[in-house]
């Protein structure tokens, strides 16, 4: 095996950066699942829409950060509209119907994006163009910044859930919907807000990912699939597990890409998912349930 150490280290950095973006997507997905039992098949498409809205906002305002904010807010509002119109009527039905309804949404969103923005990829210009030396590579600081920013957003979410009044409402709804409702918590509103938060996080990852991989109308399915894998490997509805699993899966794919082509490297994460489901169906990064 002639893989030089530098390459392995570079792939480690790449894996960590990709892992943090994926963690941002997956924590929104797992939050939505944990609270409303909704498997959001359209989550990746929210990433894609966020990317497009961000690309337009960045182009018209000239500021990346403003574009990021606009995209997150727009998609949060859009997400709450989606939740009220299509998911609220499904509360109390089989979770499988939510996967069907969100699958329908995903079809519409993807083709809408194709209609609105065309088939070609949009590039978002990065706000930080500086680079540093990583062995023989000029590695952009922007990527490191992305990982840090994703961590900050997830950290804020965690603090909000742990400390904020509304965060406590959300956690109460997760634990027992009926009891939370009896205590006077407006459960339907909590559902909408959680979906909006998840959508905003998806949009933010879309914008952050824009300068690295470009925004295309087909990127949604890929993100959905990877986020599903991560959320299952990490344990459904478990925020910490999803983050660890995102990094784990991304590192695995990054190392696999050293040996095989990147298209084949995704199989590694598929296999990781299947092995997890076989041997630890509750997730890799959670304590064994009693």
């Amino acid at each position: 095996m002639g893989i030089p150490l530098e390459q392995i280290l570079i792939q480690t950095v790449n894996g960590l950066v990709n892992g943090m973006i994926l963690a941002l997507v997956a924590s929104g997905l797992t939050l939505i699942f944990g609270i409303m039992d909704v498997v959001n098949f359209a989550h990746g498409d929210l990433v894609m829409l966020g990317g497009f809205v961000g690309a337009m906002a960045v182009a018209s305002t000239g500021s990346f950060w403003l574009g990021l904010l606009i995209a997150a807010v727009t998609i949060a509002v859009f997400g709450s509209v989606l939740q009220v119109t299509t998911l609220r009527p499904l509360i109390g039905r089989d979770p499988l119907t939510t996967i069907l309804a969100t699958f329908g949404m995903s079809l519409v969103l993807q083709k809408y994006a194709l209609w609105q923005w065309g088939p070609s990829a949009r590039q978002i210009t990065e706000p930080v163009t500086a680079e540093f030396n990583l062995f023989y590579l000029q590695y952009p600081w922007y990527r490191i910044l992305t990982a840090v920013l994703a961590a900050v957003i997830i950290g804020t979410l965690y603090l909000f859930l742990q400390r904020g009044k509304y965060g406590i409402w959300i956690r109460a709804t997760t634990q027992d919907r009926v009891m939370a409702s009896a205590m006077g918590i407006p459960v339907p509103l909590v559902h909408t807000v959680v979906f909006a938060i998840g959508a905003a996080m998806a949009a933010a990852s879309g914008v952050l990912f824009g300068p690295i991989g470009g925004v295309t109308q087909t990127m949604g399915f890929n993100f959905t699939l990877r986020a599903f894998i991560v959320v299952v490997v990490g344990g459904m509805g478990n925020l910490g597990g999803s983050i660890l699993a995102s990094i784990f899966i991304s590192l695995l794919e990054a190392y696999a890409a050293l040996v095989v082509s990147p298209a084949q490297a995704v199989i590694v994460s598929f296999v990781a998912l299947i092995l997890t489901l076989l041997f630890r169906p509750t997730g890799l990064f959670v304590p064994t349930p009693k």
Partner: protein
Amino acid sequence: MRRLDTPYWIGFGLVLAALVVAPLVLPEFWRRFVTEILIWGLLAMSSDILVGYTGMVSFGHSVFFGLGMYGAAAALLTVRPPNLWLAIVYGLIGAGAVAAFVAYFATRLRDIYFSITTLVFSQIFFVIIFTWTEVTGGENGLTFRQPPFALPGLGAIAFTGATLHWFVLAVVTISFLLLRRVTRSPFGMVLQAIRENEPRARAIGYSVERYKIVAVMLSGLFGGLAGVLYAIQNKFAAPDFVFFVVSGEVVIFNVMGGMGTLVGPVAGAAFFLLLREGISRYFTEYYLIPVGIIFTAMVIFMPQGLLGFARRRLNQ
């Protein structure tokens, strides 16, 4: 029971008669269209065994369809002269082998985990087929010649549009009758018991896992058969048909037509293809926008699908 069944068989006979006559009266385009509806209908029926009868929503049915296609391609490209029955056998072996693989792993899981696992499995095979260019032709797929229709001892004649339609119709009708028999057998009843209440079915003493594995195998075999028919009709096998889009369409067929009825998914396939045909004249490739909206609305307001909706109306 007998009394209720009579109108059903009369309706069945009428539809069958219409489908037999169809190629004689329809122009070329619509004849092909009806043949395609039958093929997709068979795929939809096969997934109904899982979705409707056992309560397991498969998001990876494209893998069975695709392996059926590539199995047929293998037979038609390697064996001279091309043999129709061998293509079917190879296709069924391909789909059956994958179905055994998927069944072994995926049936240990329930609900959404089953759905996600089937989705992931179909992606694994998609990536393998897409990247293994030497064997599968990669992105371009494989093309081959249509095998003639041959009966042992009676010689062979090449398919025409009409005879191919009748052949497909015969295969789909036999499959339908077989599947209908299976769903009404004690085995089918156990599947429905699993759908209604899995822990209880287990408590009664049924080996739920074994039933689920057989259900996935059965579903995969008929899905593969649909793939073989599609390969023979179109004379190619392409990785697009292993991709998620096909699996998604199968789910749409089921929801639109009505799960758990066998006939419903076929009606759903016809409805979807007609909608696509009608809408894409105005919206070209954006037909999925209105179709997706209709689909989502049906999930919310018409969970029984078209057939369930119609049945309720008739019973009123």
